[in-house]
């Protein structure tokens, strides 16, 4: 038992990722029957990218929900989803991506597969990182809003043509378990499976390529990293600018210069790597301050 706790302590992020994925995708009957959950919890969204058509999903995907409301002919703005993104972003920022996103977990696991040469960044990385903002504006907001049919309804363009998370967690299990869906799967399904396979292979060599270059949800949360409740802080008295944090960061962020970069998923590797303990989170600072105050009392 002690070993289990020791392992959990060392792999706390992986344990949280697994636990949250299972907790929010706990409708196991869906996987065997090839159906989806229809309970009232689907009014709410989960913080990560988690397709609501995943057979196990107990709640909704914020990006799918955003497109669903914007694509509705009666709405041109969504307070509900904007508010949800504001709330989660203000509290956690991109910590969601590192700790609570099922597709982030999948990429983390795939990247553990040994490969002859792990690639730190793709050629053109600096420009490719802007792609996710283009996808957010184009595929998630503008196309569902303005590319409408005769009755004024828009489509979920990101879900339909890009989202590999939907293909993995919803498309493959549903099509695999549902004979009717198998008969209707065609070119679009093949395109999405192809995208997923490409991303899986890329994830072996590059750490989290979908999060870095494509994910519109991470693009939104990243904008909050500088002001969210959870932030990283550098103790400049302790920091020697040795670069150990940058070396440890799989997303190639110079943490001692940009502790709250919009790319940071709060994995904590930099904190572990810092030889001087110069990096801490706002949560750790408050805990320390509270302990100090309790000590005085």
């Amino acid at each position, binding site marked *: 038992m002690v070993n289990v706790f020791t392992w959990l302590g060392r792999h706390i992020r992986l344990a949280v990722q697994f636990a949250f994925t299972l907790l929010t995708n706990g409708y196991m009957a869906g996987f065997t029957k090839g159906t989806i959950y229809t309970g009232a919890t689907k009014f709410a969204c989960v913080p990560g990218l988690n397709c609501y058509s995943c057979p196990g999903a107990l709640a909704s995907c914020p990006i799918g929900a955003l497109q669903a409301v914007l694509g509705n002919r009666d709405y041109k703005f969504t*307070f509900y989803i904007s508010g949800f993104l504001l709330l989660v972003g203000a509290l956690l920022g991109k910590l969601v991506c590192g700790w609570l996103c099922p597709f982030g977990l999948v990429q983390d696991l795939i990247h553990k597969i040994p490969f002859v040469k792990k690639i730190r960044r793709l050629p053109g990385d600096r420009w490719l990182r802007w792609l996710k903002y283009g996808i957010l504006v184009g595929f998630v907001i503008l196309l569902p809003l303005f590319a409408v049919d005769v009755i004024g309804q828009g489509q979920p363009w990101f879900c339909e043509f890009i989202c590999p998370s939907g*293909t993995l967690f919803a498309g493959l299990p549903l099509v695999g378990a549902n004979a009717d869906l198998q008969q209707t799967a065609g070119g679009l399904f093949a395109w*999405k499976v192809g995208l997923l396979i490409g991303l899986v292979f890329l994830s072996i060599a590059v750490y989290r390529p979908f999060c870095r270059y494509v994910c519109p949800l991470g693009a939104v949360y990243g904008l909050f990293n500088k002001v969210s409740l959870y932030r990283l802080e550098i103790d400049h008295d302790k920091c020697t600018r040795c670069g150990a944090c940058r070396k440890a960061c799989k997303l190639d962020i110079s943490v001692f210069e940009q502790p709250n970069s919009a790319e940071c998923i709060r994995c904590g590797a930099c904190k572990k790597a810092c030889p001087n303990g110069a990096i801490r989170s706002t949560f750790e600072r408050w805990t320390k301050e509270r302990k100090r105050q309790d000590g005085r009392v």
Partner: protein
Amino acid sequence: MTARLKNRLWLILAAAGIVFIIVGVMRGEAQIVFTKAVNICLECIGIG
């Protein structure tokens, strides 16, 4: 941005988020999300 404002900005944004969510529910947006989420989204799974 002053450090004090930066430390409190999350609170303003979170409060705005809660207000937005309430407004969204009152406008019937939650119902749109629910209706979409309890039916298999053919676009999402690649059927079209």
